[in-house]
């Protein structure tokens, strides 16, 4: 069965004007393209300190065709709460408020403010774009950095803890909508944003975003690596609403371990896993299996 693909603007310049400061192969503008396809210019992005603060380009310019409020590192969800309430108060209901934050600004320093906003169920979408480290400050480890990965603060033996599963934490908040997504699957992201747009209350999207600079891969492979994460079963695409996990189409085949590509396929393209040992790869496999079991239990 072939469904019609949603219309996405394939000319990046319709979304991001000259003057942006993204690295080649950066996942951020890829996602913004999809956001723009869903909301047009009618969105306010609340952006804490992160790569995106740079990517939009310096004052007095602004490369992204959207309204932006740059905010302090720990506060994206809190500021977005205030903006959403003010728009409600003023009767403005055709503008989407989006907190757009990195993994550090979400899983670490912003966690309390995220949790608070989710519990209060403010009406906005929180998108955590996850490049799995503090890239803006030079690739330091975050709570969302995966096990075994090199960063500048896990320089020799790699990270010794697993990734913090923020989507699951958000599910535990009983918010109306949680989803995982990937920059490698723009149509999937598009559909998820469309659904989120129609739901009132707090929506959370955990967006996997491979970063060539921090993960040490050739910038041309951003999409390939994003896809490999899904095809190896390492990154699972799903939605959570009505109290259940709904596995997304792209991830459905990989519920069967036999259909997954070997984890090594994903790791080998990335310099950050260059020194990983076979034992550690086994540990990653165990972790992936554990995640799938959790998903299956909650479907």
């Amino acid at each position, binding site marked *: 069965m072939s469904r019609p693909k949603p219309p996405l603007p394939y000319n990046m310049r319709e979304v991001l004007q000259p003057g942006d400061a993204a690295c080649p192969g950066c996942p951020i503008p890829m996602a913004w393209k999809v956001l723009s396809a869903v909301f047009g210019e009618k969105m306010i992005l609340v952006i804490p300190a992160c790569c995106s603060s740079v990517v939009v380009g310096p004052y007095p310019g602004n490369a992204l065709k959207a309204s932006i409020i740059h905010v302090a590192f720990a506060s994206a969800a809190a500021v977005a709460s205030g903006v959403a309430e003010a728009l409600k108060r003023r009767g*403005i209901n055709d503008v989407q408020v989006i907190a757009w934050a990195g993994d550090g600004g979400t899983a670490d320093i912003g966690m309390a*403010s995220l949790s608070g906003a989710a519990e209060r169920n403010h009406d906005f979408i929180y998108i955590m774009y996850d490049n799995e480290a503090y890239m803006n400050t030079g690739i330091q480890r975050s709570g969302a950095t995966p096990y075994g990965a090199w960063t500048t603060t896990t320089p020799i033996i790699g990270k010794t803890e697993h990734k913090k599963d923020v989507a699951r934490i958000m599910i535990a908040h009983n918010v109306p909508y949680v989803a995982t997504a990937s920059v490698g699957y723009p149509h999937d992201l598009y559909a998820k944003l469309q659904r989120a747009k129609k739901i009132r209350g707090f929506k959370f999207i955990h967006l996997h975003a491979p970063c060539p600079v921090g993960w040490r891969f050739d910038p041309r492979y951003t999409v390939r690596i994003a896809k490999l994460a899904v095809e190896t079963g390492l990154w699972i695409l799903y939605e959570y609403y009505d109290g259940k996990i709904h596995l997304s189409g792209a991830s459905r085949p990989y519920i069967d371990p036999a259909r997954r590509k070997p984890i090594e396929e994903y790791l080998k393209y990335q310099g950050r896993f260059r020194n990983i040992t076979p034992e550690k790869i086994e540990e990653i496999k165990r972790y992936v299996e554990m995640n799938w079991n959790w998903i299956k239990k909650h479907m």
Partner: protein
Amino acid sequence: MGEKLVLTGNYAVAYAAKLARVDIVAAYPITPQTTIVEKIAELIESGEMDAIMINVESEHSALAATFGAAVAGARVLTATSSHGLMYMHEYLHWTSRARIPVVLALVTRTLAPGWNIWSSHDDFYGQRDTGWILSFALDNQEVLDTTIQAFKISEDPRVYLPVLVALDAFILSHTSMPVELPDEKQVAEWLGPRRQGYVVDGRELLAIGNLTWPEDTEEMVMDLWRAMEESYNVIKEVDREYGKLFGRSYGGLIQCINCSDAKYLAVAMGAWSGDLMEAVNMLREEGYSIGVLRVRFYRPFPHRDIWEYARGVKGLIVYDRAISFGAWGQLYTDTVAGLYQYTTKLPIISNVIAGVGGVNVTAEEFYELTKNFIEKIEGGEEPPRITWYHRR
């Protein structure tokens, strides 16, 4: 004449928020600020006040959410104390540098360890360089009036800066006094609709806070400084207008009592200035030529007004309820530097640090300290420049 109620300082803040028709309040509880939040919640839930309350999970988020709501066009208020203010500190800078009108009520409280809920002014002074307009009330009537005035000042196009209104823990926050409430409609008319330099509400594309080069940044900071200078006149103007409309004004940035012919001045800020006034009355009765200069707005610093009264005096004694470790009391430092703008021949200016940690200082003690200062000078001696006044 408006309605008269018996209100604590904290309730005076809550009623001021109602009278100013605040749209959104975001706050987090901390002693002794809590009853502000509780009263506002009650006013909203009982239908007396039409506003949205965001019960955030921390003070950092309290001011962040307040900021967000303000940027999106709402009239906002938050309130805190002590450690709450410390936790918010990042957002004080953020708000002023973004030039967003916000009003914050601060119930001044000592910092820990150890835990101490009584009033010192350390939390207040910790915000000295944030670019906020900083005011300090004497009594609950002034808490109410200054909070309403704060919206007018903050939303003035010549200013567009956040305003902090301080009141001392317990001495005001939990002490009931008769407070006259101005007519709500009249206040609404006077304040007018919310005004701010820009609104981010998605109607037009606007980005605030992008990466900024050094020269642009310096110009923005200079602009903030200019707005703060400009606010000096606005504060006076607002206080005068308020007086005409509602029958009470406070002399602008300072209040000086018994000052016109005084040879000595006692300078202080906050509720204990009331005790100092009592002491000065006693001294006046004994023939001492002294006045009290109460600082009502600490930023912008009212150096012009202080000079106006200090010109020609023999000595000033400045009482500080906090200390800048390794230096002096903050009000003292500013008074000395402020007067130096006008003369190279300063009178004798002494600093007494007292009341820290909430230690009570009575009118009698102010009387002794101030009298001692005058006697020393009159006797041809030089009083010490800085003293800790501490007793058990």
